[in-house]
């Protein structure tokens, strides 16, 4: 990453009781850059994403968005600034239509006014291939439909950086391939992406940089194939070869 980071965590620590979930993490994503975050269970990945999104406050450290200190800003403020997030388990408003779900995100999360919000939703639902089901209740969607809606809702907030948490989990190969095409298009459109994903072979099709975490620290950061073959990364997942 050569340009000024769009979103940055500096010396971030977060404890839950005696557990240090994040132990001095430095992380940055540049404009239009796609970065993957991997790591074994409990490594601190989702905690980092939540701290970047503003749903969890760090115990210490700083979060900057486009150079501005947003450490004390909540999730709603950050969403309006341009930090969008798609969650691992989609929880749409089941009794509302797909379009209405998207509209809530665009207006409350993105701060868009009525006409702008409508236009944004139509665009994002088409992009996420939900145009044909825009007027269906969200609770009638299958898993792929819900994942697409989760992505559409995050995009409806008009983000500059998109935080994705395991959105490929549970999809079939064909569905994951479709998701990859969609996210590649977003990346190519200039959106910065931070993507946590256990399905590494899906992730590496999109990201140009991979960060591996273990025990609340970054243990590797670089070109995806090199990171996944890094001995520290393999040991973090599979135990030490020398044990």
């Amino acid at each position, binding site marked *: 990453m050569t340009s000024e980071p769009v979103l940055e965590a500096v010396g971030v620590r977060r404890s839950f009781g005696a557990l240090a979930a994040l132990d001095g993490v430095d992380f940055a994503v540049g404009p239009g850059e796609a970065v993957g975050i991997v790591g*074994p*269970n409990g490594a601190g990945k989702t905690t980092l994403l939540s701290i970047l999104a503003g749903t969890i406050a760090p115990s210490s450290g700083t979060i900057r968005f486009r150079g501005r200190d947003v450490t004390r800003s909540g999730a709603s403020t950050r969403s309006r600034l341009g930090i969008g997030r798609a969650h691992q388990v989609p929880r749409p408003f089941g009794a509302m239509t797909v379009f209405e779900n998207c509209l809530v995100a665009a207006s409350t999360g993105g701060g868009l006014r009525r006409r702008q919000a409508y236009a944004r939703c139509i665009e994002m639902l088409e992009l996420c291939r939900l145009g044909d089901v825009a007027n269906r209740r969200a609770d009638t969607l*299958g*898993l792929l439909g*819900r994942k697409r809606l989760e992505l559409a809702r995050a995009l409806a907030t008009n983000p500059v950086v998109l935080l994705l948490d*395991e959105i490929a*989990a*549970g999809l*079939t*190969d064909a569905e994951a391939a479709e998701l990859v095409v969609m996210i590649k298009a977003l990346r190519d459109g200039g959106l910065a992406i931070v993507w946590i994903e*256990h*399905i*590494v*072979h*899906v992730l*590496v099709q999109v990201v140009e940089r991979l960060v591996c975490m273990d025990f609340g620290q970054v243990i590797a950061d670089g070109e995806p*194939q090199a990171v*996944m*073959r890094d001995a520290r990364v*393999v040991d973090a*997942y*599979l*135990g*030490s*070869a*020398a*044990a």
Partner: protein
Amino acid sequence: MSLLSVENLELRHGLLEAVRGVSLTLEQGQTVALVGANGAGKTTLLRALAGAHRPSGGTITFDGVDITRRRAHECVRMGISLVPEGRRLFGNLTVEENLLVAAQRKRPGHWNVETLLEAFPLLQRLRHQRAATLSGGEQQAAAIGRALISNPRLLLLDEVSLGLAPLAVDAVYSSLATVIAAGATILLVEQDLTRAVSVAQRVVCMLEGRFVLEGRAAELSREQITDAYFGLQRPAGVGA
């Protein structure tokens, strides 16, 4: 005839396909390690074999009997015991009382409270201690003891080393070595590959609900398993 035979098994969690048509056989006295990343479907598969998760397709045959639709207590009676991730002991009961609860459904065989405590000196020392006051490693040893006391013919172990300090893992694997030496048949889910390979004859790697690599533990390289584990290179024609 294999002790366990799984054919084209499919398991779902609501909308999610957790296990997608896997087939596996386990011979009497064999230890097989099942490895794979988070969400690969390992625990769901183990729970299905123990009767705790109803399959949406495929068959499970145990000692020649179709047990696909059998419930957990029926599977225990037939000789299948699961040591679940997180141990799940009765915290207010002592180690001995935990063993006695499990012994209510025991099959005839070598293991009873006395033989267990004799074989596992650690448990002997903790016999009258409440389970909630034990360390993670001690709880794991007690959970393995609890599974053994039913005299299972197939022992399913889920992440026995997870969250334990290295010394505690040593103690748990030392207990396992005793169990294996006594001729147990084991399917072991384990994140620590080195530990798993130290006790297993065969390794099966799962990725996104499928088997993507399987072979003799002694013949698979760490690189082969790493690539399969992360899906970096999908080996052709392996697994279902």
